[in-house]
């Protein structure tokens, strides 16, 4: 693990931990939501950022896992610690199963197919009354407890969520640096050249999609044990689009970007509450500006500024290219 990665991981714990001591309960709740989103967006980064697979169904995987936890704990009375691994494994398997046929599609076809998957998920969750409780959702998911201590307040749950985020980010960084991470980027950059270099393109895509689903599943577990209530609208396609927006605002292809994007887009609506309904207009314009002026997101901007300071006019420095053609 590189020093930069290590510093980043420590920064998550230190900044998050410090904030947890000073913020109000309401802000802590938002922090928790941001951290849960960050875990999901790190997952989306495997599919979209590294492998170039656009997914508008990411929220459905979080939902699948959250519902698993809800059903296993409330209907079967299992401990969340048993339910969560089961939910994560089940969701990862379904991501692989769904990915295998869907990933033959490319670009906007894949976007539409994954969107369709998300919509179907919501419809099933609304209509399978016996299992999911329909639009009423499932309430009464038990608190997580660690060594006899119940994580029942926002502050203690945030510590648990921060540790989870750190572990997910560390795993993601390790995969990024491994041959598997390089294979994903190669598939994103040029599928034909990747096949010519001996890479199993379909295998890499399914693996990336499954990893994305796994992270979404972890986020779903955190969501279920934090809010302790799941309902279909918590996992509709609008959330999938928000995840994608978080990744683009933060900087696709970057783990730091995924986290920053999740935090910014969770808090922005609160900071700009004065705008009222005009927030959506502002949000739309902001996305446009980011796509046109900052295609590599906030992380790309920071990197560009620091490079300019270090070596003005040096063309050979490593500014990452915009993630090529996503077609």
């Amino acid at each position, binding site marked *: 693990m590189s020093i930069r990665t290590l510093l980043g991981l420590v920064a998550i714990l230190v900044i998050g931990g410090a904030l947890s001591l000073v913020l109000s309960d309401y802000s802590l709740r938002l922090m928790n939501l941001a951290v849960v989103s960050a875990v999901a967006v790190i997952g989306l980064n495997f599919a979209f950022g590294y492998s170039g697979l656009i997914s508008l169904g990411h929220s459905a995987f979080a939902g699948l896992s959250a519902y698993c936890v809800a059903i296993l704990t409330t209907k079967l009375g299992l401990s969340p610690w048993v339910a969560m691994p089961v939910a994560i494994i089940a969701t990862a398997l379904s991501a692989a199963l769904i990915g295998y046929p869907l990933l033959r599609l490319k670009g906007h076809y894949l976007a539409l197919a994954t969107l369709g998957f998300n919509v179907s998920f919501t419809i099933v969750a609304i209509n399978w009354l016996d299992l999911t409780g329909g639009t009423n959702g499932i309430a009464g998911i038990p608190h997580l407890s660690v060594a006899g201590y119940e994580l029942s307040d926002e502050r203690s749950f945030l510590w648990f969520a921060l540790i989870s985020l750190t572990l997910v980010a560390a795993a993601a960084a390790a995969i990024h640096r491994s*041959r598997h991470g*390089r*294979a994903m*980027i*190669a598939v*994103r*950059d*040029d599928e*034909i*050249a*990747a*096949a*010519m*270099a*001996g*890479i*199993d*393109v379909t295998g890499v895509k399914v693996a990336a999609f499954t990893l994305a689903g796994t992270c979404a599943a972890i986020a779903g577990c955190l969501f279920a044990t934090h809010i302790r209530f799941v309902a279909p609208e918590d996992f509709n396609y609008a959330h999938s689009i928000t995840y994608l927006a978080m990744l683009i605002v933060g900087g696709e*292809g970057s783990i730091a970007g995924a986290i920053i994007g999740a935090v910014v887009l969770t808090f922005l609506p609160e900071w700009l509450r004065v705008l009222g309904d005009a927030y959506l207009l502002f949000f739309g314009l902001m996305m446009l500006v980011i796509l046109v002026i900052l295609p590599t997101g906030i992380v790309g901007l920071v990197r560009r500024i620091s490079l300019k300071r270090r070596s003005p006019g040096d*063309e*050979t420095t*490593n500014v*990452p*290219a915009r*993630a*090529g053609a996503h077609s």
Partner: protein
Amino acid sequence: MLTCNDLTVAYGDIVALHGVNITVKAGETVALIGANGAGKTTLLQTISGLNKVKSGDIVFESSSLATIPSERRVRLGIAHAPEGRRIFPGLTVEENLSLATAPWRRWSQSIADDLGRVFDLFPRLKERRRQLGWSLSGGEQQMLAIGRALMARPRILLLDEPSLGLAPRLAEEVYERVKLIGEAGMTILVVEQNTVLALAVANRGYVLETGRVVLEGAAKDLKQNSRVREAYLGR
């Protein structure tokens, strides 16, 4: 080592190769020359499994490639430096190189040795090993594409227009390296529009016109052939 038997390839209704017969023997460098649209690139892509064969067969070391997908063909020893280089812009030079072996061979001393060999052949790549692919010049990208193909420890190297888009001096530099690789014992099938360069490094050659082999022979004979001289050498 590699034989194409009566190979026919079509894109929909358009037939790109009509019953092509080509043989490459171990250790030789074979040039495939011809104008734009003659089917040269199609032939190389079919050998590496990117195009479907309509009829005929490709035999590599006495076994048919018909059912083998392209990524497996690389592992069997058919490495392809594609037309237009197609290096990975978002990966560094070193990552581009190690990628070509790493998916099926774990990082080990042997890969470091392979990297060293490529860097010996192309010292410029060593200087730029930490740079991202897109920031390389055209010549460096071509060297990287050839280096990447070599990293797979091929038994045969397929080169598609290594001179494409390069200044004449750079194209010659690339071909000097191709010659060195061939002299070290590598079997090479090179597709090229720049007939002078290709015939200078090749032992034998085939001339392809609208999907058919119209001429074949030793490189030195092809250089003297009146048809080749008129059509491709401009003399």
